[in-house]
Each structure stands twice: as structure tokens, then as C-alpha cells.
């Protein structure tokens, strides 16, 4: 087995051994989906929205919750912790570069997030009769772009935080505002124009907008795609510049 496969396998096992991470990473978004889906008024059509219900527009927001939990919380904490503990430094003395370990963690996190996306689409469809995205390809593209943009922001956190605890703190500071602008508390449809404009320029605001567009069969707006690509490139470049192995 190659070092990369082995690393990905072991990182995945380690993730499942950390019950806090499993509960937060895999539990939070589906549980929120079920709770919101059980609110009767959320299953009634909103006047003036072509029969869309609150739960329908919330599914993309909860996908954003899943993306953010891995992207700015779980993965940065893992990476910063590995650096602080010298796990990455130890790997530098072997023929395998520590970048391989970060790559394995990214693959693991991405696989988990994709799994979560599928689980939530299935729950939403079966339990709450939420239609599957009408433009599947646009939905997947939007998901990939939102995941990449959020992951890049998470890499900056991982690069800057001196320890797992501080990565956790920085993650927290980013997590809630990102989810606010993604529409977790006030759906984007109800946001004040100023808030909506800010939301358009955040990774998950643009992400949720694109997912919502794809859900009803449209392609994402150019602005939202540009915002997500921009975050990926800028944050990715910044992370690459400031990241230290030790």
C-alpha cells in the first residue's frame, strides 16, 4: 500500500475514534436538517416563492453547515495540532513529505463532506419530500467550489494557528459569521440588501446562493462562481505562503 493510501486510511480511522469530531462533523448538519424538517410551518409553501417551502431553501444552507464544520473547524484543528505536536516535523525525517499527510487529511475531509451531502439529500427527499436538485451538474459544481473556497480559508487558519486550541478559537470566530451569511439564521431571501451583498461575497453565501439556484434548475450566477474561485485562489495562495511545518 502506498504511503498516501495508508495515511488516508489511518487518518480516517483516527477521525472516527474522536467522538467529539464525529458528533460535530457528521452529526450536526443531518440533525439540524431533521429538527428543522419537523417544524410544521417549515413544510408549508412560502407565498410568492413558486411553492417553495422553508425546508427546501434550508437544505443548501445545511450543506453549507457540513462544509464549514469540516473546512474551518475539524481539519484546521487537526492540522494545527499535528504541527504543534511535531507530527509533521517527525514526518520530515522520512522519505515521505508532510504535505502528503495534509493531502490525506484533505481527501478524508472531502470524502466525509461528500458523504454528508448525499446522506442529507436522501434524508431531505425521503423524510421531507424535498425535490432532488433539478440541475445536478450545477449542484455538484457549486458544492465543489464552495468546499474548495471554505477549505482554502481553513488552510489559512491551519497555517496561522500555533496550536489545536487556537485553531479551534479562530475556527469558531469564522464559523458563525460564515454560517450567518450562508443564511442559517436569516435565509438569504429575507436578508436586508446590505447583508445580502455581504453574503454574496462570502464563500458560503455565494455557495448557498449557487446551490439554491441549482436546486431549482438554474446555473449559478457568474458573481457567485467568481467569489468562490477568488476565495480559493487568494486564501490558498496565502496559506501556501504562511504555512510552516513546525
Amino acid at each position, binding site marked *: 500500500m502506498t*504511503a498516501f493510501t495508508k*495515511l488516508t486510511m489511518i487518518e480516517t480511522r483516527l477521525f472516527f475514534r474522536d467522538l467529539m469530531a464525529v458528533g460535530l462533523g457528521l452529526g450536526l448538519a443531518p440533525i439540524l436538517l431533521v429538527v428543522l424538517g419537523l417544524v410544521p410551518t417549515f413544510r408549508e409553501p412560502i407565498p410568492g416563492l413558486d411553492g417553495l417551502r422553508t425546508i427546501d431553501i434550508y437544505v443548501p444552507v445545511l450543506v453549507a453547515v457540513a462544509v464549514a464544520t469540516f473546512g474551518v473547524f475539524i481539519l484546521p484543528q487537526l492540522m494545527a495540532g499535528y504541527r504543534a505536536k*511535531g*507530527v509533521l516535523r*517527525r514526518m520530515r525525517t522520512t522519505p515521505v513529505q508532510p504535505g502528503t499527510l495534509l493531502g490525506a487529511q484533505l481527501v478524508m475531509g472531502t470524502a466525509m463532506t461528500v458523504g454528508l451531502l448525499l446522506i442529507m439529500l436522501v434524508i431531505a427527499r425521503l423524510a421531507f419530500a424535498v425535490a432532488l436538485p433539478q440541475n445536478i451538474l450545477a449542484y455538484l459544481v457549486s458544492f465543489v467550489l464552495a468546499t474548495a473556497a471554505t477549505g482554502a480559508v481553513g488552510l489559512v487558519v491551519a497555517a496561522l494557528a500555533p496550536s489545536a486550541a487556537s485553531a479551534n478559537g479562530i475556527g469558531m470566530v469564522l464559523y458563525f459569521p460564515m454560517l450567518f451569511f450562508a443564511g442559517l439564521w436569516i435565509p438569504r431571501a429575507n436578508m436586508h440588501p446590505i447583508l445580502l451583498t455581504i453574503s454574496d461575497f462570502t464563500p458560503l453565501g455565494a455557495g448557498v446562493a449557487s446551490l439554491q439556484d441549482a436546486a431549482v434548475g438554474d446555473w449559478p450566477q457568474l458573481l457567485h462562481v467568481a467569489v468562490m474561485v477568488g476565495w480559493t485562489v487568494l486564501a490558498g495562495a496565502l496559506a501556501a505562503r504562511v504555512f510552516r511545518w513546525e
Partner: protein
Amino acid sequence: MESIIEVNDLVKRYGATTTVDGVSFSVDEGEIFGILGPNGAGKTTTVECIEGLRKPDGGSIRVAGLDPQSEARELKELLGAQLQETELPDLIRVREAMELYSSFYRDPVDWRELLDDLGLAGKLETPFRRLSGGQKQRLSIALAVVGNPRIAVLDELTTGLDPQARRDTWDLIERIRGRGVTIVLVTHFMEEAERLCDRLAVIDSGRVVAVDTPAGLVAKVDHRQRVRFRPSAPLDHALLTGLPEVSHVERAGGQLVVTGTGDLLQAVTALLAQQGVIAGDLRVEQATLDDAFVALTGRRLESEEAR
């Protein structure tokens, strides 16, 4: 014997501070080579340059003919390292750590046999964080040699271990050498250096002050001996220092420590008999590596407790 590591005039600076200032030595294949010095002497920086983790500012290094900077990938196949203050993920199990690190190398050894050798065979399913300090160190030795290296660099391996665990670790190091691995051992413990090393480089303030066998280093100060005893009655120091054999007299608790050369014991006991003083707990001490270190650097190694 062939040199497997050649360090010539190595210089490493951090800002205005020169941590390593022209260090040269060579390590023969198959030996346990010690790098001894006080904390902050530049020992770790020196070996990190050998490991390719740091880029030297001057001088040259060859490890089995390879340049640690430009031929890093190849170097890491044949040099295993144990670093100070590095850990594994808390929840990784011993078996997983061994499987993982084995997968990093082209030609790893059988890690099960290795763990047997290191007394960790019963800990395969134990998570890293539940291992004792000594077990963690043994695992880190195992990880350093699982790639079947020709050289293992062990940095402050026994710091923080209790005396029993330290002695066990020394046995393991000799066993690893028995497998044909050349060992570079960074330490600030005299006893460790004296017990394990075939040869030693004494480093102080970024410079090599001596390279020799432990016995060779001691021989440099061998002429000095010490007589230590508890006098039954007060004794005028001037009488002792008046003896031609005596160079120095010191009081340590209730004891007198007389340092000198030649037939020191005979001279001191003759004086005591003449003064009617009985010497209780009389002991003669030869110079140790500790004394050699003091003679070479003008100071004592810091004790572990002082860290």
C-alpha cells in the same frame, strides 16, 4: 573503518547568533558516536543539518556520500531520526504507527520483530497517549529504525526518563547497533556518553572542543586524582596544601576533598597519621568523563534537574 558521516566546518546562524561555529567531525560506520555538550551548545542544530532538516550557512556535510540538502529523498531512506519533542497523534495505535512508518520506506524491516526486540510486542493495540514515557521513547526508536537505515540519529533520547527506563533504553541502543546500524547519539548526560559511546565529540558554544574515545578524553586529565574522607578532628587545610602532591583542598559537607597528583593517597594518609587524625569513609577517586568535560570547557554539564 570507513567514515559514514563527514562534517566539515559546519556553520549555522540564526540572525546575529551563530549557533554552530565551524564544527567538524567524522563518524565511522558501525560505531556509536556521541555528541555531548550543555544545553544550547548547538548539538541539536548540528544533527538537524545532518538530517537535512536545516540548511547550513557554511561548511559541508556528506552522509554515506550524499548531500543532505540536494539528495534529501535518498538520505532519508538510509538515515532514521528520532527528534526531541515530537509526538504521534494521541489516538494512533502502536501497530498503526509501525504499519504507517513502514509504508514510508522502500525496504522496511519486519516491524513485528523490531517491536519484539524493543519489548513493545504486548502494546500493539495501545493508543500512543496511553504509553508511558519509556514506551513512547522505545516506539520512537522503533520508528527511527523501521526503514532499515544505515544510520540512526537519536536526540536526547533519555531526557525525562526515570533511571531504570534510561538503563533499559541504553541496552536497546546497543542492540540496535548490534543490527549493524551506526548511531549518532546527542546527549547531555555524562553517564550515558561514558556507558554507550565508542567516540565522542564534545561541543561547547557551537564549537568542537575535543573528539576522542571516553577513555581518551579522561586520559587527557588522568593525572588528577581525588582523595575524599571525613576527618575525625579538625585539620588545618594549610598542612594539606603544603604537601607537594596536593593541588587543591575543598570542604564538602563534613568531608574533605583533596585533589592532586602523584602518590596522593600515601602523602595524605601519612600526614593524617602524623597529626593523629583518623580518616573516615576514605575513598580515592580517579578522574571521570565529567572531570574531562570540566577541564575541556571550564564548566560542568547542567544536571537534568537544572533544566
